[in-house]
């Protein structure tokens, strides 16, 4: 009936956010979300195992903070224009994460943080190629990704 | 009038729609079932059309159908009058033979033939019935979309190339249609034809000019559909490339444009300040079309093109004659329209059978060509026809009949039609009405020349196909393919014999068309079901 | 006073967004390569989405919200298809 409870709950929330909260819409939203989650069940996606879902808010907080920070950083680079001396470049980061959903989350984090972009994941070597706008210290970035995000994600998902 | 009878008005649209939708539930392999559904739908359609035809000719028939029960200028209305009933009957009459013909072999040449066929009928009937300009656009699109599909039914390089041109031109036309309709809406504030006819008198100044521009653009669209030179170059290619049954039913497609022109020019532009808008275009364009069609008829080597150019001649004749704006002649033109539609349909159906005999391998080749390059088409049964004794004789008689009809020779209805128009122009019906204008002489000359050209071409083609090359080989023809052709020709014969009653109907039709007030009145004052007060205009109608 | 600020900030923000769209359009026409154009289209979509939201604030109606939601939720489909076309030469394999 409900293969993905978390998803169904989110869909109900989305429904309510869209329509406003009434009892009728709660019921309707539940029906729709059940329907939609059947749809997703048909796709048979790799089912993520959320071990420590309570860590999610922390992750969200960290990411929001980082995004603000890098927004400012990138904006300042761009505003300074030609005077800015920044060196952009590629870097490869080895990853331990295996779960596709976790990888997706990581990629979303990396890419939506201005200044870093997830380019290519290699499943054999399990490395990811990242492009960084301001690649001053490569190790710094690597540590950021592995320590700050990957570790947390490993904790949540695996 | 009882309730159910009133709902008959919408049946010509709903029956094919439901049939077409129903057909979607069945797999292509269930051919018999699909064919059955299609045939039943066509028969039902014919029954309904005849019923409406009968009703439309009776006095006091309420032919206005308020869709959604909304009063007239606001909702969409369907209107059955003599003209639309005539067109409905013609379409349904044409549908049955072409469908039967297609059942012999062509319906398996591609996917979804029956659905598309039904939708085409839906579009045609909708275009005939609707009393609303934008709804007309929608049904034009339904009809055209289905015709695109049908034209390319069976695929093949020729058809697809022709289809590309056909679609491109018609898409451009559709855009013009939209511009025209919206310009009319923008300047008159209504989409209902009857309401438009009412309002048109009050519109002045720049708004009138915009309205006329919109109407002109709309006219261009209908002239493209009707095939007026020089907007008709798509037609020969498209019609001659289509498979026989499709070309057969296409015979009525070019008449839709004529129908709309007739309807709008007499309803909206029949009286008042914009009266006679564009009549000269019709007259001279029609004459140019006859000339071009005649030239094409002469220049055609392939029978398919000959038939397509005959469509142009027929369109041109109708346009030119409508351009004269003379009641008697218009009645003759209606008769001619019926006759030439049946003729051309019969001819298109016949061509395929005749050409099948020209080359012994042709029929097999046609089949393999259809199936070429396609992995998932099951093999056609090769033995599609049986060599019948007398096949050639029957084919020959039918071919001769088509030639006679096309060239307007007696004794078939082509002659009566031509005579009816000519006599309205120069004969007894204008006796003593002063000198005959030069344009009439031109039309008469062109009509005679076009008949002559058809005669020359048809003898040339007939001799080539029947006497010079068909020796020894007898085409394989099924009774199911021959019967529709014979039926259509028999219909023209019946039309000849019953010319008197038929012409009476046409004359009555023209009379109703020339008095649009009754039409307008019927539409605007149509009663809403279940609403106590007569469905007058609402608050914002301003009528 | 606060109202004036609001009016000005809305105007300002619309101007910024439109300017951003102009820049994206320039990039779109300049290229130099297909991926730049696709990215420019994506940016154009995003900017229009924001513009519609600001327009909603300006008119005080959230009728236009769905339009922005459509861009936010579905706008990427077109870009994904374009990107995949660049990468693989066809969209659906």
């Amino acid at each position, binding site marked *: 009936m409900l293969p993905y409870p978390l998803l169904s709950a989110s869909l109900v929330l989305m429904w309510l956010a*869209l*329509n406003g909260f009434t*009892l009728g819409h709660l019921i*309707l939203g539940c029906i*729709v979300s059940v329907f939609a989650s059947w*749809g*997703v069940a048909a796709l048979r996606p790799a089912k993520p195992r959320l071990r420590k879902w309570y860590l999610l808010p922390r992750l969200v907080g960290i990411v929001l903070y980082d995004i603000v920070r890098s927004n400012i950083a990138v904006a300042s680079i761009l505003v300074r224009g030609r005077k800015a001396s920044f060196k952009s470049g590629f870097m490869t980061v080895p990853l331990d994460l295996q779960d596709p*959903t976790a*990888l997706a989350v990581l990629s979303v984090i990396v890419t939506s943080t201005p200044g870093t972009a997830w380019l290519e994941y290699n*499943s054999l070597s399990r490395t990811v190629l990242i492009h960084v706008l301001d690649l001053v210290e490569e190790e710094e970035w690597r540590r950021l990704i592995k320590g700050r995000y990957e570790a947390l994600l490993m904790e949540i998902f695996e | 009038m009882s309730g159910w009878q009133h709902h008959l008005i919408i049946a010509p649209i709903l029956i094919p729609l439901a049939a077409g*939708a129903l057909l*979607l539930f069945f797999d292509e392999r269930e051919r018999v079932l699909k064919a059955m559904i299609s045939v039943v739908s066509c028969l039902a359609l014919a029954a309904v059309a005849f019923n409406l035809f009968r009703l439309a000719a009776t006095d006091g028939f309420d032919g206005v159908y308020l869709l959604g029960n909304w009063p007239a200028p*606001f909702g969409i209305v369907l209107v059955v009058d003599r003209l639309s009933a005539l067109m409905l009957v013609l379409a349904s009459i044409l549908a049955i033979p072409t469908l039967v013909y297609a059942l012999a072999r062509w319906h398996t040449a*591609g996917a979804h033939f029956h*659905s*598309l066929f039904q939708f085409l009928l839906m579009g045609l009937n909708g275009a005939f019935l609707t009393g609303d300009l934008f709804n007309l656009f929608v049904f034009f699109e339904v009809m055209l979309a289905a015709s695109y*599909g049908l034209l390319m039914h069976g695929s093949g390089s020729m058809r697809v190339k022709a289809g590309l041109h056909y679609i491109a*031109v018609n898409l451009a036309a559709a855009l*013009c249609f939209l511009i025209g309709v919206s*310009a009319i809406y*923008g300047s008159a504030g209504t989409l209902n034809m009857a309401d438009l006819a009412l309002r048109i008198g009050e519109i002045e100044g720049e708004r009138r*000019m915009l309205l006329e*521009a919109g109407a*002109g653009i709309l*006219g*261009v669209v209908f*002239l493209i559909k009707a095939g007026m030179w020089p907007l008709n170059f798509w037609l020969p290619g498209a019609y001659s490339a289509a498979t026989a049954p499709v070309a057969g039913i296409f015979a009525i497609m070019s008449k839709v444009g004529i129908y709309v022109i007739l309807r709008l020019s007499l309803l909206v532009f029949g009286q008042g300040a914009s009266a006679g808008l564009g009549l000269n275009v019709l007259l001279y364009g029609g004459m140019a079309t006859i000339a071009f069609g005649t030239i094409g008829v*002469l220049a055609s080597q392939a029978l398919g093109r000959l038939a397509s150019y005959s469509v142009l001649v027929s369109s041109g004749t109708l346009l030119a004659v409508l351009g004269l704006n003379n009641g008697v002649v218009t009645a003759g033109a209606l008769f001619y329209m019926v006759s030439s539609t049946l003729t051309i349909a019969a001819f298109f159906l016949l061509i395929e059978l005749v050409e099948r005999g020209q080359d012994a391998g042709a029929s097999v080749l046609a089949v393999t060509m259809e199936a*070429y*390059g396609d*992995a998932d088409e099951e093999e056609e049964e090769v033995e599609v026809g049986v060599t019948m004794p007398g096949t050639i*004789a029957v084919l020959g008689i039918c071919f001769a009949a088509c030639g006679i009809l096309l060239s307007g*020779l007696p004794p078939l209805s082509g002659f*009566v039609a031509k*005579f*009816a128009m000519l006599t309205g122009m*120069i*004969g*007894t019906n204008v006796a003593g009405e002063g000198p*005959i204008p030069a344009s009439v002489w031109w039309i008469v000359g062109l009509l005679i020349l076009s008949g*002559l050209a058809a005669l020359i*071409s048809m003898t040339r083609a007939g*001799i080539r196909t029947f*006497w010079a090359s068909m020796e020894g080989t007898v085409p394989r023809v099924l009774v199911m393919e021959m019967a529709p052709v014979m039926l259509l020709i028999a219909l023209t014969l019946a039309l000849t014999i019953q010319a008197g009653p038929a*012409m009476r109907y046409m*004359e009555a039709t023209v009379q109703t068309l020339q008095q649009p007030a009754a039409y307008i009145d019927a539409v605007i004052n149509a009663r809403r079901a279940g609403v106590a007060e007569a469905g007058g205009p*609402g*608050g*914002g109608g301003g009528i | 006073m606060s109202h004036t600020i609001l009016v000005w900030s809305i105007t300002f923000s619309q101007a910024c967004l439109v300017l951003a769209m102009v820049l994206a*359009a320039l990039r779109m026409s300049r290229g130099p390569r297909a991926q730049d154009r696709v990215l420019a289209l994506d940016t154009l979509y995003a900017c229009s989405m924001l513009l*519609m939201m600001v327009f909603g604030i300006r008119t005080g109606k959230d009728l236009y919200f*769905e*339009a922005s939601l459509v861009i936010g939720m579905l706008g990427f*489909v077109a870009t994904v*298809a374009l990107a995949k*076309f*660049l990468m693989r*030469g066809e969209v*659906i*394999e």
Partner: protein
Amino acid sequence: MTGELILVLLVCLPFAGSLAATVLLRTDSRVLAARMAGGVAFACLVLTAMLYPAVRGGGRVRLDLEWLPQLGLDVTLRMDGFAWLFAMLVTGIGCLVVLYARYYMSEEDPVPRFFSFLLAFMGSMLGIVLSGNIILLSVFWELTSIFSFLLISYWHNNAAARDGARMALTITGIGGFCLLAGLLVLGHIVGSYDLDVVLAAGDKIKAHPLYLTALVLILIGALTKSAQVPFHFWLPNAMAAPTPVSAYLHSATMVKAGVFLLVRFWPALSGTYEWFMLVGIAGISTLLLGAYFAMFQQDLKGLLAYSTISHLGLITTLLSLGSPVAAVAAIFHMMNHATFKASLFMAAGIIDHETGTRDMRRLSGLFKYLPITGTLAMVASAAMAGVPLLNGFISKEMFFAEAVETHADSVLDRILPYVATLAGAFSVAYSIRFIHMVFFGPPPTDLPKPKPHEPPHWMRFPIEFLVLACLVVGVIPSLSIGPFLHSAVLSVLGERTPEYSLAVWHGINTPLIMSMIALLGGAALYFVMKDYLAKCDDGPPLFRQLTGQRIFERVLVTVSWKWARWLESNLGTRSLQPQLRLVAAAGLLVGVVPLYIAGFSPKAPVLGEVDPIFAVIWGIGAFCALGAAYQAKYHRLAALVLLGGAGITTCITFVWLSAPDLAITQLVVEIVTTVLLLLGLRWLPKRSEKVDNAVTLAARSRRFRDFLLAVSCGFGMFLFSYAIMKQPVPDAIASYFLEKAYTEGGGRNVVNVILVDFRGFDTMGEIAVLAIVALTVFALLRRFRPAPDSIEKPEQQRIQNAYDDERPERSAGDTVRDYLLVPSVIMQWMFPVVITFSIYLLLRGHDLPGGGFAGGVTMAIAFLLQYLAGGVRWAEDRIRILPLRWMGFGLLMAAATGMGAWFLGYPFLTTYSQYVALPFIGKVPAATALFFDIGVFALVVGATVLILIALAHQSVRMHRVRSPEAGKAEET
């Protein structure tokens, strides 16, 4: 039996017999067919004869049947003395010809067909004779053309027969059309098509300004039919017909129809100077030329054909004179000519039949073998030559008598006696030649059939009968033909019937001297020219090269084929671009001309009104549109992207100008369209800028023209839309919708209420369009064959696959798997979200922006996304969409919702809306329009998915070799 019934029978019997003969198509029924045909012809003869009492002395029988009374076209059959005489001729000779043909036709010929055509022809001929309505007359007139075509081409494997038949049909067809036009003009003048009325209105006709028009048109009809110069040449070519056909058509019927017509309209049309000149010139020249040509023919039938032409010229000449006596002579000669010419044709047929040739150079001395036939032929040709005591003599005497009279005092008058005598001499010469060369002289040497002998008696019988008639009429004219002729004359001339006497001997007078001169001169002429004629080529010396036939064919080919083809290709086109150019130009013309005529001047825009942000947005839009136009040739993807830019501008415009529904719909459609075009892009050929940049001058000017057209269209559209937008909005129907949408339509979103309620019918049509297009796309793609150069996988994939293949640790497809690994996760998780959103759009449509269409496309995008994420196989492994079912369901749902109203007594698509109170939830709006919208939704999902997926399938299909489930997108 009443006269009316006989009239009907006379016209119907032959056609009935003709139809009956077609049933006897089996070849073994030849005798049966002949008997039936003979029976029918004889019955007609008897029936005609039975009518004599009624028509004697100027009486007439008339029958009116309604056919097309409004237009004055009725089946009026009418028999008077003249018609009676002619009908007797038609049926009588018809009987004889049938009898003759019974023996003439060979075993191999499909005889029933022959008799069928012959009877039909006889019927048509009787129709002409009996028509009492001039339009009906032209009906039968055309029928004779058609059936004569079929008869002449009876041996259609013979090219000469085909050509001859076609020429006959063409010429007489032209004549027929002209005749019809002429008769219509006559109707215009008189005000009726009734023959009696027309004949009575002679003075009115001749005084009318359109008299000449009518006359010329009618004369063209008559003269073509009667093979008069310059339309004569079809007749000799028609000799390829079987001899019975020639005997019938060219003696008594077909060619006589023309002169019959002249006689018929003689009271109404003749007597004017125009008549005299036109008919006279044609008649005299035909008379002379026909006789002259006849002398030099080597073909027996050719000689007879030209002689026929000449004799018809004689009749025409007589009719041209306008004097009653001449008309009598004409009628009389028509009868006489029919008798002797029919017998001569039959005799020629026997000769041909027995010897196998008709070439006079090969025939000689046949009298020994065919004594009886020879004798008969001699008598008949003596009649043709006008030898006394034969019928030809009497009518020729009358002709000569008339020739010396003065009629209109013109040059024609003065030459007529000489011409008549000369033509008489020629006719004597060829008659002698016919007899002398065939029957006398040395025995024949190289006959194809070496031993000719007399034919069976019944085959000779018709000739015997006719020759007897010649003799009887020639000896005792007033006792034999006299009364009949008189009633015929009476019916034509009425009060103007002159005194005339049918006698062999009128004393020695000028005509007799002319006759003698002609006889002696003709004999002398023949014996002078005998040796030349025995060897010379076919055709007369001066005109041998200049045959009408050749000229006609050349002209026909030139006009109807070469010129037509040239004109067709120059007035028409088979390319698309000119057509679109014309459409654009036509639209521009009709759109702009009214503006110009009305002196439209746009109001200058007030700058302050322009919202700068909106202006900038449109700057972007215009920029993108122009960019797309510029890039579309070489940089397709760039054009597509720029098109997207133009699309987003449109969306913003919709938002800006208060149309949220449109914005949403446009956006989703935009997305789907982009994907669609991309799917298609894969199959288009590579195009690089370098290859074809050699621009010719023509191409450059073409481009310039297109550019001008495009700019003017753009400018015109700008003006037009500016004018219309600046127009104060008319008192539109809109306010009704705004007022009633909630109270009666039950929805707050007026646009949606219009779509599903006020104008729901439009929406139904629109979804039908979508369904049709989806079906068409599917049908077309099932037959899709990619061009050879795009069958291969795209370059990118080849490179990537090669890369994967090169490396042992990688398996094929690793690159793409990695590429999509992360995105596909997100795309999968978006699936339920998008579905939810689509349902949201669907359900709220009635009150707020959204609706079934936007929802449906959104749903389709949800599916599309999965295809994008995982590819066809992956997606179809997991989700089975049955698009056709969705479509069928959607259409039926929409239709069923509409039909639901019937059960409540309302018209189709009447909606019903109400607030329903549900427990816990409260009042919920429930409108049947929602069901309609669900139908729309389902259809849109089905159709969009079908289109996209069918297209996507092509990539897979091409790489799969004939696997059984290929192309079955409907099942996936």
